[in-house]
């Protein structure tokens, strides 16, 4: 009797389990639960705390006073005119540096990605060489650029030996930052572009050439539109980290410029975390809006293969 009860209970449990598994929603939920939990714990929770703190204030004993106010946001633009405030200045500089870094990466990576997609020979070696810097620490890579740039750096020493140094462009400053960031972000752009160009149906390219299109016209009218989603994706992979960078700017500008990542880090260092949170929240919103605009503009629904 007891055995029969146990068997019935087991069957009932199995039936419930089967019904649950049969539900598409439950399967999806089970699949997404771990990553969802991770995102909630590591992204949403700190992000929510950051947003909450951005509306609080910190007293001289470094304690957070929970009196909701938009004063920290107002202070970001508290200047006459508003674009002269350090926050707007540093954000503007960051946008310029991140844009320059993205353009450098795009221009340098597109031909390489095209060659990789078109030619089998040497592909693995090139990809390995591109990924090689990832095997070293980011700080070490930035420090190596630090040794190259600067008035007493290797580049200026070589220029001096060759009789045309020192060169201003080799000093610490924005050009050095762009070089350092482009070096760090280049693989993201290259691999994203390669994935897109590799998926292009090159019969379309050949057909365009057969119909008399020049190489430039083929690039402009065929290749570029088909790889635009990858260009946008690669640009975001480069632009977003470059916008918030603070290690490379710190080293490679000799701290003579203030990008928005440095500004936020400086405010955190001085325990001004409410103000830092307001600045960081604004940057997050700014990036999210830029991302949405970019996706809309590039019509991300169109893949390199031309399928929607």
């Amino acid at each position, binding site marked *: 009797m007891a055995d029969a009860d146990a068997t019935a209970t087991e069957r009932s449990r199995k039936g419930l389990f089967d019904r649950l598994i049969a539900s598409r929603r439950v399967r999806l939920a089970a699949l997404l639960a771990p990553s969802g939990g991770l995102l909630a714990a590591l992204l949403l929770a700190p992000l929510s705390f950051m947003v909450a703190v951005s509306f609080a204030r910190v007293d*001289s*004993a*470094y*304690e957070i006073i929970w009196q909701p106010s938009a004063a920290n946001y107002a202070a970001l633009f508290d200047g006459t005119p508003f674009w002269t405030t*350090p*926050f707007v*200045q*540093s954000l503007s*500089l960051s946008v310029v540096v991140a844009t320059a870094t993205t353009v450098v990466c795009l221009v340098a990576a597109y031909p390489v990605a095209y060659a990789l997609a078109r030619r089998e020979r040497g592909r693995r070696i090139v990809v390995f060489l591109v990924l090689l810097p990832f095997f070293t620490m980011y700080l070490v890579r930035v420090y190596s650029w630090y*040794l190259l740039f*600067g*008035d*007493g*750096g290797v580049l200026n020493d070589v220029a001096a030996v060759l009789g045309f140094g020192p060169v201003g462009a080799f*000093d*610490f400053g924005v050009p050095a930052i762009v070089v350092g960031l482009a070096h760090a972000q280049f693989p993201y752009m290259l691999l994203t572009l390669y994935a897109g160009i590799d998926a292009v149906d090159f019969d379309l390219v050949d057909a365009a050439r057969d119909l008399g299109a020049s190489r430039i016209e083929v690039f402009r009218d065929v290749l570029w539109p088909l790889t635009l989603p990858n260009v946008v994706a690669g640009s975001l992979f480069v632009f977003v980290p470059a916008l918030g960078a603070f290690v490379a700017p*710190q080293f490679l*500008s*000799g*701290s*003579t*410029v*203030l990008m928005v990542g*440095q*500004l936020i880090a*400086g*405010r955190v260092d*001085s*325990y*001004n975390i409410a103000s830092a949170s307001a600045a960081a929240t604004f940057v997050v919103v700014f990036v999210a809006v830029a991302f949405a605009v970019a996706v809309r503009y590039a019509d991300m629904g169109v893949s390199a293969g031309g399928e929607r």
Partner: protein
Amino acid sequence: MSSRDDTVNGDDTARGTFDRRSFLAATGTVATSAIAGCVGGGGGSGTPTINIITWEHYARDDVQAAVESAVDVNLEITKSTSSADMFSGWQSGQDEQYDIAVPNNNYVPRFAEAGLVEPAPLDDLTNYPDIYEKFKDFTDGQLAVDGTSYGVPIRFGFYGYGYDSRDVPDHEESWSVLFEGVDGVDLQGKVALYDNHFKAMTAAALHLGFHDAFEGDRVTLSQSQLEDVKAALIDQKKSYLSSYIAGDASFVKGIKKGDFHVGHSGRMNLTNMWVDGNDWVKMATPKEGSMSWFEAAVVSKQSEHPDLAWEVVDEYIAPKTGATLAREGHAPSVNPKTSANLSERRNELYGSIDPSRLDGMIPFKAVENEDAWRSAWEEIKTA
């Protein structure tokens, strides 16, 4: 049914097994207890532990051993690199974890005002009477709240600037060198300042002659003085600045690499370079006065051994242990008697200090309206 019931029911095999297991378990427990008693007995038999949060040099083996043998105490030392971190940590409950903290002088009033620390029993400290009079004045002044002193100075240092004597000749030592250069030397783009609003802006204020700003309990710049300081630093950035340096390591790398010939620096930093054989770098002590730091120990109100904690603090300024700390950290002790335990060379570097030299010291102080200073500094950096 439990095994005990089985045994009671007369199962000999079970009883035999039970007994053997019980014996082994009991033996093991006794042995473990005995070992724990022996190991713990050393500590429990009279060597209490004092927990300290402080700078790296205090945790060096020689310094720790000197204190432990002199006071008969175990020290558990946590290294820190920031007085602000020490303070915020104690604010959030670490005052129960640590007996002693050794922040910079300007943080002692914050600890006291937050009710975190004990008054300092200065009369009970045997080595305190020997420290420089200047530091006794600081103890009664800056380290006191409402007339009660809360900290005991340990060691000190001061800021000036270092220069590469191969490129910059001897000159009148003044903060103006960082802002206007030296006659006959092209220092455009060859000067480094600290990437720190307090250090850079106080240097500018002293260069501009705003001595009145340093006279009170806090450094106080009027609005117009703040504007002048900002303008001076922006001008300096456009003409003489090579880079803003994050700390001592950046100074050493930059001046060795040739990125700059003159750089804002603490004396301890240059002492380290001299010890490493870089005699070409020289230290200038500006005539307008030097911003100086000194570390002061405080004892937590939550400490279970406050008297012992103060004994430990007193030992850090004892002639022998103070000399050991000076040797390890290359920074002079507040007790001049330490110089008797240092070699002639070490005394030149960080031992014997002429008391008259201390007169030019302006101790680090809290800043009035620090938010305005920070905003000004961000404006300078983005200019």
